[in-house]
């Protein structure tokens, strides 16, 4: 799953709206539950993992003598 936080949030909100407005039928519930679970796991994981932790910007503008 490669989403932005915005996309994940929007999709999850839509699922919640649908279920709260009784728009989800029993026969699609399992599929929607799986989607919601995946979106939540995606956000939780993304909040806690990132590639590079601390880096120093590379460029000539960085004063080397400081």
């Amino acid at each position, binding site marked *: 799953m490669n989403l932005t*936080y*915005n996309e994940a*949030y929007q999709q*999850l*909100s839509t*699922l*919640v709206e649908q*279920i*709260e407005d009784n728009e*989800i039928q*029993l026969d699609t*519930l399992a599929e*929607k*539950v799986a989607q*919601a679970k995946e979106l*939540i796991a995606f*956000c*939780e994981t*993304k*909040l*806690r*993992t*990132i*590639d*590079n*932790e*601390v*880096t*120093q*910007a590379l*460029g000539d*503008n*960085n*004063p080397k003598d*400081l």
Partner: protein
Amino acid sequence: MPQQLKLSELVNEIEDAIQNRFAGKTFWITAEITDVKKQTDKRWCFLKFIEKEGNLITTEMKGVFWSTTFYNVEKFEQLTGKPFASGLQITCNVRVRFHKRFGIDLEVLEIDHSYALGKLALEKDLTLERLLKENPSLIRLEDGQYFTYNKQITLPLVMQKIALVTAPNSDGQRDFKQEIANNQYGYAFAVTEFLTQIQGDNSSKLIVQQLQLIQSQMEKFDLVVIVRGGGSQTDFKPFDDYELSKYVAAFPLPVFTGIGHDRNTSIVDMMARQHKTPTKVASSIVDHNYNFESTIVNLKERFFGNAENLVEKAKETIRQLKRTVKAYSPSSILQKGYAIITINDKIIIDPKKVHPGSEIKTLLRDEIIFSTVTKKSNNEPDL
């Protein structure tokens, strides 16, 4: 040969004259200071008071703070956020002193801080006025609050990729990174450091250069953090600079400042999202992400709460159906005292098939009655 005096005799007379005129008296003066030499360990400060016409110094007098009044210098730095240094104009209370070897000087007894603060505030006001006047589309003032383009950029839902502008090996850098790295929720962050000198004459230009560098790769970052810190650092002047302030006001990524001073808010602070200290900048970023996670948890609870209800309702409907089916089953009917009549072992639905002489069975709960029909008539319900 005229009468000759020893040097000391003449100097004694000078001393007497000065004593007569100045002993026990103090004076308030306003003057520029130069050649400021602070000896913090001894708590002395030597300086010169000067007065100029154009660029020409017309009057000059030595001045000194001794350890009993040195706290004035420290207080000045605390209050103004500026180092006590050459080029300042100060108002102070002085006493005239004369020493037979070192000559005449002015001992400073007290600084009028309100004068220094007033002057500083005035400079700041002028810069703010100019920012408003020359950048109406970027900066406006409403009810004493500055609204800038930068402050109104919507923050991303989560902020993880941080461009950190700070001085190398500074307290601010350390405090910020510690708070970020040790956040209690275990959130991950990528901090890219843009190190620069952050105090002194040229630093506002150097900070702008770092911001330009960030802007050239802005898709890599969620926000910019500018922090400085450290107890004795007092030079806030770079953060009141017009060009830097304007650059921050117009910057396309959200800028969080943690420039750290209790009394003074710098102009850069006003143009950006201000936090008191580097640690607080870090915790506000962590809190922002926590808010997002709370929203997600809330959505999760709403979704699964409703999903459970949905399943529960479906189960209830099935239970209801089962009850209905059961209520209409033949055995339930017989239990209630009704009877079922059959002909040729088929339930009589159409009475036309029954005639006098037909063999019928009446099924009761426990027994079956066998009968022969003797008579048939219409059943008029007595309604």
